[in-house]
């Protein structure tokens, strides 16, 4: 069953398109991470999923319902979480619970349990204006969990936190994952995505430019080519023309995110320029490499990150053996 189903979603602000025919599917029980540069449309997407914004076109289903009908089953942590800081953490959670018609001893016990989960039991009765940013984010997670939702929509939970706060937040997200929540997480933190999520998508200019399983990420991309001789700097222009992310240090040329077509074009260029390839090795790619590659606009939308394939390697080695 899909927790989130999006088909052909379009949204513009004053005729400026933000989402351009987005398709996305998040299965129930999955932890899905959405990456993307600022302005890619991540927060807009979350606001559409919450029903705060109305789509211009397309279809959105949240837990099989229209977004605004699913509020009872959805927990939401906004990106810029501002609070009604005049009250204490416990008091705030009590009110938030009552806006969903939760009350009585059940709500009291749930608040106590959530304050313990997010590590705020000692600060629970302090006014929230005395809380650090990390504490405010944790109370934000607690309010999102109040109704024991089936789906959590979390927008940049580590935004503005110091490294210790980021680690704490990550641990909390891992804990939520272990409790079986379906989570849709927008983030800029690569570590957070790789440590917490099952699947990751990269949103660029309102389209899903790449999507892959996090388990597939290590060892998927990249090759390093070592040449016999050190090339002149002129070669760098040719390399950059092929792909701006190709780098050269001395005789070593690296493609951070490899595709068969790019690999073939690079080898063709080297052969045309008369270079001899000494070695060709696969390299371990990272989510960061994939992200940078996709965001700089050199990747066509892909269904999944391609496994490293090197069809020309065998040919090259055979040619070398013949020579």
């Amino acid at each position, binding site marked *: 069953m899909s927790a989130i189903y999006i088909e052909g979603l379009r949204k513009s602000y004053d005729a400026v398109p933000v989402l351009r025919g987005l398709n996305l599917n998040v299965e129930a029980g999955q932890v899905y991470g959405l990456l993307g540069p600022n302005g890619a449309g991540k927060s807009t997407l979350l606001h559409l999923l*919450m029903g705060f914004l109305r789509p211009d076109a397309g279809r959105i289903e949240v837990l099989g319902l229209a977004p605004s009908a699913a509020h009872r089953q959805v927990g939401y942590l906004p990106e810029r979480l*501002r609070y009604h800081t005049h*009250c204490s953490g416990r008091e705030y959670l009590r009110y938030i619970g*009552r*806006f*969903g018609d939760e009350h009585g001893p059940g709500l009291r016990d749930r608040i106590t349990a959530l304050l313990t989960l997010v590590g705020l039991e000692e600060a629970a009765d302090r006014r929230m204006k005395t809380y650090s940013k990390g504490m405010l984010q944790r109370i934000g997670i607690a309010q999102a969990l109040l109704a024991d939702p089936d789906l959590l929509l979390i927008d940049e939970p580590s935004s503005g936190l110091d490294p210790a706060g980021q680690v704490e937040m990550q641990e909390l997200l891992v804990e939520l994952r272990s409790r079986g929540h379906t989570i849709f997480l927008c983030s800029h933190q690569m570590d957070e995505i790789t440590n917490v999520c099952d699947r990751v998508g990269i949103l660029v200019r309102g389209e899903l430019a790449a999507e892959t399983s996090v388990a597939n990420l290590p060892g998927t991309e990249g090759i390093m080519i070592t040449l016999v001789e050190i090339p002149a700097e002129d070669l760098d222009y040719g390399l950059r023309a092929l792909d701006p992310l190709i780098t050269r240090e001395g005789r070593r040329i690296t493609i951070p995110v490899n595709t068969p077509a790019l690999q073939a074009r690079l080898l063709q260029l080297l052969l045309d320029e008369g270079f001899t390839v000494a070695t060709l090795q696969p390299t371990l790619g990272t989510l960061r490499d994939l992200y940078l590659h996709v965001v700089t606009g050199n990747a066509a939308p892909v269904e999944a990150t391609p496994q490293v394939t090197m069809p020309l390697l065998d040919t090259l080695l055979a040619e070398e053996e013949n020579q």
Partner: protein
Amino acid sequence: MTRYRQIWAWTRFTLSEYLRSGRVLIELGALIVFAYIFLRKPNSAAILDATQFFSMTAVFVLAQSIYTSSVLMSMGSRAQGYVVLARPLGRKGYLMGLFLVAVIIGAINFVLCSLIVTLINQPIRWNFSIWGAGALPLILEIGIVAALVMLLSGLVLTSGWRLLVLGVVALASLGSADIFSKVIALDSTFGKLLSAVRTLVGIPLTPLLAGFELTTQRLYSTQSLAIILGQITLLVALLAFSMAAFDRRDIILN
């Protein structure tokens, strides 16, 4: 019942935030100044009657309601609202809570004015039924003003619609004012057309103006009942229009 409990919880929360934020001090300050200037007994011979009290207090309380409602709408437009809107309370409940707080504060203002005048300068022939006769239409007026300010806020209507509604209100408010007759010949085609439009758009605001008159005069008859019903109808219509508009628009809070 569930929905009412949610709205009431949101109303109490907003009211407590309004009070704790200190914004209410502005209202209290204005109330003290108003009471000192208009409600105190300037000399031992001065006499205040109920009509004078209601005429002054209605203007003051309605002006304060415009301020309170504006502040509440700006409070409702802050990013804090996303967490509240994400709850089952929903958009309609959110707006209704803000409206109720504006009405409660307006009503408290009026009650405080009444208490002050009773204590320091009791009007002649002042009793509970005279007070109630003026209080009922005045509290409905507070509701209408709060609903109108809510409708005209950036939270509810886009700027284009706000301009249109403001234009209609301005045209209707001119009513029988002779401003047009000085610049436009009323017997010309344009003058007749404008007059017709003015009459038409003025109809919905009639209960507001008549309600104010009923507050100050308190002369109850069958017609007064129609005025009260008209006020209630206008209030419900404004709330329904606000909620329908808010339900359809994109919510972008800052």
